């Protein structure tokens, strides 16, 4: 081979390699775009809910309370009759059957929504107000265009007559889309139009908080001890190997461990963020220790020697010099560990967080759901309304993860000291 041929071959190899590299990046980006596009197109409609503008007349005869009633009285009062009487007026129905079909267009919470209006203003008796009442899941999906109305009637959840009412609402501008506050404030529900991630958000928050409180100090102290103080011998080698192994243990194994020890033996309350936090802390520990040790190791030995040489004790050289320098790396490692814990589903399913929980937990020992488990639960539900809720929950989860990773990168870039 001549010199020129060899040169050409080398250039060709280089070009080929660049092409392969670019192609793989393109393919990777394509997948990300498809994924994000899919989630957004399905999920973005969940942030709006369909409401039916309805006139509500508070008839004294249908209510056992008076104007100016106290909170408790209102809470206990029955608004069912008021609801029925007003809702059936939303459309000129001819008979009981038609009225029943009309009522099904409203959400199961219509009575509560009317009661809330009265709670806000307890002088409404004898007056008529206009309320935006949440529509049922079927109408919601129909209005958002997620539901095909050209199917034959027997294959539709909405009857022909309900479609007529819907068209009447649209024509009279009685139907519109509002910001979906239920999605953020409510717990889980069997009715998609009322279901929200409020409970899952609080549950995830408590779980991650407990995980942080347990895992961070233990992991940091363990790393400092192992990296700076522990003698290098067979025992510490063994510990090091096992920490690396533990980081690779499938998370469901931690779930089984928690099931046996935390739930069966110690008898902690199941389905709670407390147990979830402890389980996630166990899982996250090695995942924090590894980056933490790496950042301690990255502090040049000359800094330790410099401190020791002016007479600092081992403890002083570590805590005055090494730890502050390793802190940015430690913190970003911790945040990434927590981000992983936030997205963890399998161990939480094993400790019973997969239970159907309507109430929003008020403490870490209340039964609760968590964001990834909520995704899992809703993705299994048949109702069309849960499809958009699933994607919207994924969007929330992803945005938390992105924010956490961003903070981690920021901390590292901003505070990491460079030395020559």
């Amino acid at each position: 081979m001549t010199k020129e041929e060899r040169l050409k071959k080398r250039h060709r190899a280089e070009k080929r390699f660049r092409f392969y590299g670019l192609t793989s990046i393109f393919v990777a980006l394509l997948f990300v775009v498809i994924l994000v596009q899919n989630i957004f197109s399905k999920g973005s409609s969940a942030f709006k809910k369909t409401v039916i503008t309805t006139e509500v007349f508070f008839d004294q005869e249908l209510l056992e309370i008076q104007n100016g009633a106290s909170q408790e009285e209102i809470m206990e009062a029955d608004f069912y009759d008021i609801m029925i009487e007003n809702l059936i007026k939303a459309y000129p129905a001819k008979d009981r059957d038609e009225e029943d079909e009309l009522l099904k267009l409203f959400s199961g919470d219509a009575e509560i929504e009317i009661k809330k209006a009265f709670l806000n203003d307890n002088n409404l008796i004898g007056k008529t107000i206009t309320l935006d009442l949440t529509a049922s899941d079927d109408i919601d999906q129909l209005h958002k265009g997620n539901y095909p109305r050209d199917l034959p009637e027997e294959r539709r959840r909405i009857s022909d007559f309900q479609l007529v009412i819907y068209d009447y609402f649209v024509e009279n501008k009685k139907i519109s889309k509002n910001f979906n506050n239920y999605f953020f404030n409510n717990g889980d529900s069997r009715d998609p139009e009322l279901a929200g991630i409020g409970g899952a958000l609080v549950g995830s928050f408590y779980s991650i908080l407990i995980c942080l409180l347990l895992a961070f100090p233990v992991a940091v102290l363990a790393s400092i001890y192992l990296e700076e103080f522990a003698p290098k011998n067979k025992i510490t080698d063994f510990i090091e190997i096992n920490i690396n192994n533990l980081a690779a243990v499938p998370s469901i194994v931690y779930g089984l461990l928690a099931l046996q020890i935390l739930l069966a033996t110690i008898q902690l309350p199941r389905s709670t963020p407390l147990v979830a936090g402890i389980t996630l802390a166990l899982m996250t520990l090695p995942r924090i220790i590894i980056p933490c040790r790496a950042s301690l190791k990255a502090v040049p030995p000359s800094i330790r020697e410099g401190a020791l040489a002016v007479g600092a004790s081992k403890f002083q050289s570590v805590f005055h010099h090494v730890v502050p320098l390793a802190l940015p790396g430690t913190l970003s490692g911790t945040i990434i560990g927590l981000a992983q814990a936030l997205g963890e589903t399998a161990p939480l399913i094993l400790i019973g967080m997969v239970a159907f929980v309507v109430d929003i937990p008020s403490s870490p020992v209340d039964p609760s759901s968590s964001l990834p488990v909520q995704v899992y639960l809703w993705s299994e539900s048949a109702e069309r309304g849960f499809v958009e809720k699933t994607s919207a929950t994924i969007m929330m989860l992803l945005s938390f993860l992105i924010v956490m990773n961003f903070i981690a990168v920021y901390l590292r870039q901003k505070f990491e000291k460079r030395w020559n």
Partner: protein
Amino acid sequence: MNNIKIKSKNLNVYYGDKQALFDVNLDLNEKEVTALIGPSGCGKSTFIRCINRMNDVIDICKVTGNIEMDGMNINDKDLDVVSLRERVGMVFQKPNPFPKSIYDNISYGPKIHGKGETKSELNQIVENSLKKSALWEEVKDRLDEPGTSLSGGQQQRLCIARAISVNPEVILMDEPCSALDPIATAKIEELIDELKKTYTIVIVTHSMAQAVRVSQKTGFFHLGKLIEVGKTEKIFKNPDNKMTQDYITGRFG
């Protein structure tokens, strides 16, 4: 003739199975500069790291024999290394200022030893240390800038200032000029000349010329053994040992 400050007797050092120093007997005189020369890996650095027990940080390192400072056994297991290192400062081959301000670099030592209780005392210590290391004029207006922002030579003088801030009796210098340019080197050498009035100095160097310029006494190490020690003039003009002769004339090493 000055008093003997540090005296080593049959000093042996092992790194695991490998012996690094063999029966070193070396006396260092007070307020004098002793230069240690020899090819790389001959044990010069190992020897000076015995004087402030820096070898302790190496797990596999074992030191036997005697090394005394003013009659006190440095190699005693019960000796408090913190107070030893307060008396024996060290300057390393590569400048290693803390990634903190110039002021904090100097004040750190006095603070941990409880010297300079008030702010003004501390300021005084910082100023004196920087003056003694001939850095004061260059940095007095930017004491809160990071020490790492200084040039290599300035960083090394900062490290010397850090070493003298705790008012030690002995300063160990491990090739302090090997990472510096000739001008910075000249400044450090001048400084060493000045410092020897107050401190006992041991300097490890690869430069014969530097040894001749700064030291009064020179020790030649080879393969872990102290081959010859004596007045610098004698070692460089008329060494007793053939190996020393070969080394200083550049025939090996």
